């Protein structure tokens, strides 16, 4: 069991398999997203692994973006997860 954990940790360390969402006051940081499905000033829809993440708010704007990461600014109201 311990061996298995170590293997997972090492794999994750090397290939950044983990994904997470960090929410600050007016900022939302998404790490390791797959696709940006929808983008508007009130709604952002993302695919992360097999989950659909729906972010709702006001004046939503993408501040920074890379292939893996997304930094969203605006007034956040709701973050919703849906499984495919």
């Amino acid at each position, binding site marked *: 069991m311990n061996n298995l954990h170590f293997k997972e940790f090492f794999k994750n360390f090397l290939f950044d398999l983990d994904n997470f969402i960090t929410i600050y006051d007016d900022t939302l940081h998404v790490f390791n997203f797959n696709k*940006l499905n929808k*983008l*508007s000033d009130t709604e952002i829809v993302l695919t992360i692994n097999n989950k659909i993440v729906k972010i709702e708010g006001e004046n939503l704007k*993408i*501040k*920074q973006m890379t292939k893996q990461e*997304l930094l969203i600014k605006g007034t956040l109201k709701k973050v919703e997860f849906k499984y495919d």
Partner: protein
Amino acid sequence: MINEKIVWVKIKTKNYYSILTKLSDIGVTLYDNKKNKEEILIKTTYEDYQRIKKFLISYKIEIVDTSGFLKIKEIIKKYLVFTLSSILSVIILILVNNLIFKIDIKSSNKNIQELLERELKKAGIKTLTLKKSHQKIEEIVNNILDNNKDTLEWLEIKYDGLIMNVYVTEKTILKKEEGYDKCNIISKSDAKITSLNLYRGVALKEINDYVVKGEVIISGEITHNEEIKNNVCASGEVYGEVWYKVKVSVPYNEYYIKYTGKNRYNISFQIDDNEYLLFRSRISKKKEEKTLLYKLNDFSINLLREKEYVLSTHKLSEDEAYNKALKLAEEKVKLKLKENEGILYKKVLKKELNDSTIYLEVFIVTKENIGEVTQVLGGNQNDPKLNNENNE
């Protein structure tokens, strides 16, 4: 990001959210973005900019700003002409500051001038060549002085802007007195001898004797019992009374300049002997004072101060005009006199007056050195005619 070339890219679009979705689809990294009315500005890498151009072909895309090396490259490209001309100007300025435009040899002796020109040329100093270092100049000066020990006493080279001034002192070689083997002292003019100091030779005249121009006063022939024993170069000092008749005229109306206090300034450009004014002169009667502002070879720029004046007249009284005429006559004679010579006596011989002018004829007696050394070539050396010819 440190080594990446970062650019600000402008994309023409009204739909901010649609373009960002597309940028996410093609995997563009976005460091920052700004939304304007009909465009979006994104901060991304140069590689991503190329990708955007490749995939989003229907959009109008252009780089508006760059950073790092790209920015420097852009600035150089933008200000290429200015940058090049600035660099060129600096090079020209350095070059011009280090060039010799004129060599000014401070000597009135033409031979010395030519000698120094030759020597400087030999040392590689010519006009329109680069200035030499202080050390090199010192070396050149020492070489020139060594090569011309008999002619040059002292030499100094100094730079004054673009002009190289060469200060020189010639070596003075004391000449043998008059340089003649046989000579007489004759009278320069008709006179009455008042003093005679004999240093060498035989005095043929005495004090209070009258002499005519060219007559021998001290002879170089040493005779004994009417036989010539030796020939020397006569030496001595002979002073005598010389007479002059001077005619002068003085008008009663005397004109003098009165400055009005009105001044005008102007700039003049002088090229060779031609002078051009920057502004038209508005003063008809003026005196100009010139101040040199800039000079380069035969081109100079001067500041002119034009002082307006009016001519005023002053009518002299008869006495004033008489005294002025007398003074003028004296001054005319004094011009011919040297040190230890002067006016002994004066008398007005004739005085004529008319409405506007006074005429005087003045007799003036002076004390002058009347002796003049003349070389004896042969024949009868005491003959005034021959001496005059020799002298001429």
